[in-house]
């Protein structure tokens, strides 16, 4: 009888420890979701995340003259950023494959040096990976002297692979104060 009790006690402890281990694994899974999410968004090109590096300019890009896409520009200074930040032109028409230039105007109205980072986002999400930036001020942090006014350039190509169902694309930047300790976003 007491043998049975002892066996049961041991079996209980073993199962409980296994389940506790499972809970620990689940904590690990929770943290693993961070890189999994990042990779999924990048690979599938969802969530409006654009490639944060200069795209190679293809030598023989075919410009698709048969259709044109409306590109709209937005700029938002975030609440922790005192900048005045807006697009110089709010919209333009481009053909897929055509090299296009746009710019944003920034003024630092404060009397302090401001270091900021612009985070781009493209809507609709499926257009994000076809929106290839060749030059962008969002690739690195920007430093503004007190009272400085500057124009920030963006050069981009919309890949001809973009589905012809998409007729308009919005490029939006949120300007943040750069975190003290981070490298470029």
């Amino acid at each position, binding site marked *: 009888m007491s043998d049975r009790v002892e066996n049961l006690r041991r079996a*209980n402890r073993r*199962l409980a420890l296994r*389940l*506790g281990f499972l809970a620990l694994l689940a904590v690990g899974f*929770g943290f693993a979701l*961070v890189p999994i999410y990042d990779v999924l968004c990048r690979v599938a090109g*969802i969530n409006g995340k654009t490639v944060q590096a200069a795209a190679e300019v293809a030598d023989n890009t075919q410009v698709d003259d048969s259709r044109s896409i409306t590109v709209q520009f937005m700029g938002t200074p975030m609440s922790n950023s005192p900048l005045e930040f807006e697009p110089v032109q709010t919209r333009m028409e481009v053909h897929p494959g055509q090299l296009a230039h746009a710019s944003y105007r920034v003024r630092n109205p404060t009397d302090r040096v401001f270091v900021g980072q612009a985070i781009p986002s493209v809507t609709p*999400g499926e257009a994000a990976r076809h929106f290839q930036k060749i030059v962008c001020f969002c690739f690195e942090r920007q430093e503004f002297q007190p009272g400085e006014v500057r124009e920030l350039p963006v050069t981009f190509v919309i890949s001809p692979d973009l589905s012809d169902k998409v007729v308009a694309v919005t490029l939006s930047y949120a300007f943040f104060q750069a975190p003290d300790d981070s490298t470029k976003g």
Partner: protein
Amino acid sequence: MSTAETHAHEGHHHDQPTGLARWLFTTNHKEIGTMYLIFAFAMLFIGGGMILLVRAELFQPGLQIMQPEFYNQLITLHGLIMVFGVAMPAATGLANWMLPMMLGAPDMALPRLNNWGFWILPPAATLLVTPFFLGLAGIGTGAVDAGWTMYAPLSVQTGWGMDFAIFAVHMLGMSSILAAINVIVTIVNMRAPGMTMMKMPLFAWGFLMTAILLILIMPVLAGGVTMILTDRHFGTHFFDAAGGGDPVLWQHIFWFMGHPEVYVLLLPIAGAIPHVLQAFSRKPTYGYKAQVYGMWAITVLSVVVWAHHMFTSGMPTTAQLYFMYSTMLISLPLAVLFFCWIATVWKGSLSFETPMLFALGFIILFGWGGLTGLVLADAAADPQYHNAYFLVAHFHYALYPTTILGVMAAVYYWLPKWTGHMYDEKLGKLHFWLAIIGFNMTFIPQFFVGLAGMPRRIPDYALQFAEWNMLSSIGAFILGASHLVFLYVVIKCVRGGAKAEAKSWEGADGLEWTVPSPAPLHTFDTQPVVK
């Protein structure tokens, strides 16, 4: 719980601590179950009192009795308290009381863990509400006010009530995980000889599913709130776009926990209801196997549908379609459970004692919650209703019938077993009708104002919604009052009443009805054999 019977059992003849020490150190499943239920009921009054303040503010348009910052604290605490402080402890209390008796086990498998699991709760609840009362006294910024979903970036930026909430969620999560481990070990190892898994009571099946889900999802939430904590204080950027993070990631982490959580709350009740239906229909439960497989299907599907809470977060169309169809798919096994419940009642010799009324009320109102859920699961319709009161009404129809009506059905059903007395049937029925009338009066108007476009989470509203909101507030106070009736019924039942038989209900079936009422402190020291 007389000690006379305790001493009759050889081997349990140890000194019984008295007073506070008895409750602090107890490892007895019945005493711990009682503590869980009392804790849940006390929290129901705190979380309910908070939302009654909210309904008082919404009684008329305009700001009368509070500022929006205070309103935000109230709705946030209401959500967190009701889910983690009321619904889960109440279900765990039922499991503690009933599982060993229904399985023919002498106690839970890990009694000491059981004690820890409970005693983590009161400090956690204190931690959660302390900044609220400090705020009232003018100290600090008040309680967590980012909504119970704690969406980033708001939760990263808000006051230090959030830090209290983060640690409270850690502790509440740990408590649920300990309880879940205990339940699984008890069910797997402690069943009476002869009770195979497919002879196990449905309540045990329901809670087994819940326990499995809890072990998988609560750690993910704990990890998520830890990320918010490090974002707030230790310079990480999990949810900070400026540092390369993404606030939408929080929504995925939260709802990966948050959606299965709905089924965590439902499944123990979906397991308990068939016992009540069968007793008062006087015929065996219909489709036992179908119900078990249905619960399995719900459990598996529940972890792959979470993003239907996020249709308005800017998902690609293909993802919306996937989450829409998988969400609609989950209504199929739920429908199986519904049909089994209805078929159990079908052509039975029905009688309508209070537990039966609550069980039927649960089925009907939860059905409405499910049907309105199908409307919201439609990715094309959801954006219109998502931030409107329609959604508030929907999830209250899903959660109130399960976590309150369902729990009440179970409590009234087993109350004679716990106290040894029959409760006052008249007052029980009064409680039921007050609750049903109050609940529907509160939430039916919210469907209407939601369809008309009244946004949720805002302490003020347009004049056109005034009448419905007034009605809704009156309903809420009736609903609140119904729980005072319940409190009185329980106290009266504990103090006296007609003597309950071992088998308190004519149609009741199961091992728990083979032990005397009130159930002695120790039952099934020698396990019964199930044929």
